[in-house]
């Protein structure tokens, strides 16, 4: 007679008792209760018999193949023992460096000498390499002259001439011995007065040219290149000395 409550799946109420009985680990009460159940449940009886055969088969496997085997003779490598036994066996590079310079190991004098030698070697290394050469070359390179452009050159020259003229006016006696040069200087002063008009620089700005730093144009034009620059005769509006002298002569 089959128990209606019996379910031949994992939720069988007697499943755990069945394996306990199978392996002789059930209590006396559990065994007695299960034997009563077996009288009513054919499935559990068949299952118990099949599990018994399975257990015998596994036991045969164990006794035939595993039991004769020798123990694996576990060997722990000596190098692992040494590494694990020493808690400070593994060091980071920083720890190794610090340990190298530890005074307790070598004495502070040796540590200081080593550190000094390290610094010297570092300086020698830096000196022997071209590490800073590009910077030095840039620093020593000839800076572009502010006279590189014709406008600036003319403006500075005009300022110098005007200064000299001012000095002569304030001190005429000093110019008595320089009468032959007076005429030329006046002409130069006229040139200076006209120069800003042709150079495109306002007269008010000319006074400030020598006082403030003139920014160097990024696209520098070398002075040597000026000589080969073609200047069209029609576009050349710069004052000519001969023209100026002709203007001065009638007035005198």
């Amino acid at each position, binding site marked *: 007679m089959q128990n209606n409550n019996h379910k031949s799946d994992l939720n069988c109420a007697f499943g755990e008792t069945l394996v306990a009985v199978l392996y002789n680990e059930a209590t006396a009460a559990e065994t007695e209760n299960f034997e009563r159940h077996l009288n009513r449940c054919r499935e559990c009886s068949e299952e118990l018999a099949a599990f018994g055969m399975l257990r015998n*088969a596994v036991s045969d496997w164990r006794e035939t193949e595993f039991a004769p085997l020798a123990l694996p003779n576990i060997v722990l490598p000596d190098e692992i023992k040494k590494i694990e036994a020493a808690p400070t066996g593994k060091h980071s590079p920083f720890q190794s460096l610090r340990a190298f310079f530890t005074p307790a190991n070598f004495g502070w004098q040796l540590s200081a000498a080593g550190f000094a030698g390290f610094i010297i070697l570092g300086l020698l290394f830096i000196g022997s390499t071209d590490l800073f050469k590009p910077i030095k070359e840039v620093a020593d390179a000839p800076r572009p002259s502010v006279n590189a452009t014709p406008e600036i050159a003319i403006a500075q020259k005009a300022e110098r001439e005007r200064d000299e003229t001012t000095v002569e006016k304030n001190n005429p006696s000093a110019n008595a011995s320089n009468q032959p040069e007076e005429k030329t200087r006046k002409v130069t002063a006229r040139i200076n007065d006209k120069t800003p008009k042709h150079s495109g620089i306002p007269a008010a700005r000319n006074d400030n040219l020598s006082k403030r730093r003139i920014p160097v144009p990024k696209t520098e034009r070398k002075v040597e290149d000026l000589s080969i620059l073609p200047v069209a005769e029609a576009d050349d509006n710069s004052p000519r000395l001969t023209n100026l002298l002709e203007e001065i002569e009638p007035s005198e």
Partner: protein
Amino acid sequence: MSQTGTDEKLVEMALAGNSDAFGEIVRRWERKIFALCYGMLGREEDARDAAQETFVSAFRNLNGFRGDAKVSSWLHRIAVNQCLTRLRRQKTRNEAPLEIENEDDSSSFFAAAGQLPSGETEQKERIETVRKAVGALPTDLKQVVVMKEFEEMTFQEISEILEIPLSTVKSRLYTALKQLKKRLEKTPLEVV
């Protein structure tokens, strides 16, 4: 020199620098760990290598051992992981997968098992069939079967090592036996 004390005490001694203490742990557990590896892997050489690697791994990670767990539980977890790693490698390399044929045959495992007497060849065939059937079980079920049959542990010991309830151990074993029965019922057994 033999050490005394619990496994946990031996671990403390090993951590304190006593190399013999871990040797005692190895002596206590090497046979059971070897049996577990053999049952899980089914091959002697693989089992030896896995057992060796289990203890070496345990020794290397001795500092990571948590005092709240039992040493036996810790060793079994390491061993099972070693076995699973090897099984994955075998599967990747297709090394003799533990599979059984699902052919219906009148000469099934249980039918042949009931016949007496059985010759040596037939017994080897049966053992091979059982080995493959156990190897095809899910890991958690296989582990319980192996611990019960090869390590010959009680349910209570298995419960403590796996840190699962006693009833769970029994239900897992019951489920494992049912799956084994189901697989072997469909397995033909060649009787020579």
